[in-house]
């Protein structure tokens, strides 16, 4: 095993909150810091990690063939052309779900830990078998959620399960933050979410249209050193994982104009 290898599960409970986008961007960001990183798609039913990384046409073998020992691990790993420190281990056929066991995921993770500094596991949505398989392989976890009641509630369920499985540390990434709505108190505040879930905040990602653009292209934002807010946030998550102290952005300071000033005045407690 690489002496400092870290296996991190990226999960959320609810679907569509940004698990796969975080996995892809964090994978690239860590690789750019010079760390050997592999992203493992554990969403066998609805795999998408290959698509976000732009690697969908380069898949020959998958985790399925590796487990069946019909190919070597090296043959299944897809190396990213622009960022050679990053590799993808693609999810197999959805029919794998019929026989896949938590032990199998442990086996795969064990193989990857020998070669990589970071193993990021993109967890399927939900808390059923797919989640149970993925969590078995994880040592630590990042829970990603958005400031919406349904996403926070589902995140809470997942955190409970992670605790039961002895996964730690568990850290939080709050995604799709809209500073304007937060300032108008029409969105749960950052503190509301961290208080309720009682997790340390690893990252704060603002709502950013560039995420969709980058997904269209299959080029994660962190790949080309984009300066967009989400790209910076993902890069900061990577640096914090590496132990660097990087200050979190303050959503209430995002607006500088007169409007933002008036908004802050309106929120000030006067009695």
């Amino acid at each position, binding site marked *: 095993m690489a002496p400092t290898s870290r296996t991190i599960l990226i999960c959320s409970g609810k679907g569509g909150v940004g698990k796969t986008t975080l996995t892809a961007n964090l994978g690239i960001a860590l690789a750019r810091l010079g760390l050997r990183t592999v992203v493992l798609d554990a969403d066998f039913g609805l795999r998408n990690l290959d698509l976000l990384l732009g690697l969908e046409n380069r898949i020959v073998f998958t985790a399925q063939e590796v487990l069946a020992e019909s190919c070597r691990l090296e043959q299944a790993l897809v190396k990213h052309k622009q960022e050679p420190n990053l590799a993808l281990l693609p999810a197999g056929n959805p029919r794998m779900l019929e026989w896949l066991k938590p032990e199998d995921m442990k086996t795969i993770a064990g193989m990857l830990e020998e070669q990589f500094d970071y193993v990021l596991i993109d967890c399927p949505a939900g808390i059923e078998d797919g989640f149970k398989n993925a969590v078995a392989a994880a040592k630590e976890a990042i829970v990603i959620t958005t400031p919406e009641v349904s996403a926070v509630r589902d995140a809470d369920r997942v955190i409970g399960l992670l605790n039961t499985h002895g996964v730690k540390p568990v850290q939080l990434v709050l995604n799709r933050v809209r500073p304007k709505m937060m300032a108008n108190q*029409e*969105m749960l505040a950052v503190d509301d979410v961290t208080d309720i879930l009682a997790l340390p905040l690893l990252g704060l990602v603002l709502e950013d249209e560039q995420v969709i653009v980058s997904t269209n292209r299959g080029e994660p934002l962190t790949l080309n050193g984009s300066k967009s807010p989400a790209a910076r946030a993902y890069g900061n998550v990577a640096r914090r994982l590496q132990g660097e102290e990087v200050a979190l952005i303050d959503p209430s300071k995002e607006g500088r104009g007169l409007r933002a000033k008036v908004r802050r005045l309106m*929120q000030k407690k006067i009695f």
Partner: protein
Amino acid sequence: MTLRDILDKLLRRQPASANTARERLQLVLAHDRSDLSPELLDQMRREIFEVVARYVEIDLDEGDVSLETEDRVTALVANLPIRRPLAVASGATGDE
């Protein structure tokens, strides 16, 4: 009270939704975490009142049994104002 709260009141606008979201979440999570449905909690509440009422006279209108959560720990919190001890109860505790 903020300027915004005052404006909301003056204009009879709905208050901002973030507070509502937080309160609803805290309630639903207390139930999720304890695995108690509102019906079961209600039943438990009634039974607790019954047991306590055997010993002391409690103010049912003011009393409350609810789940509260802080730092992922959920507690059952009972607040049962006592009107006065029942005669039976003081008998049961022996001579005083």
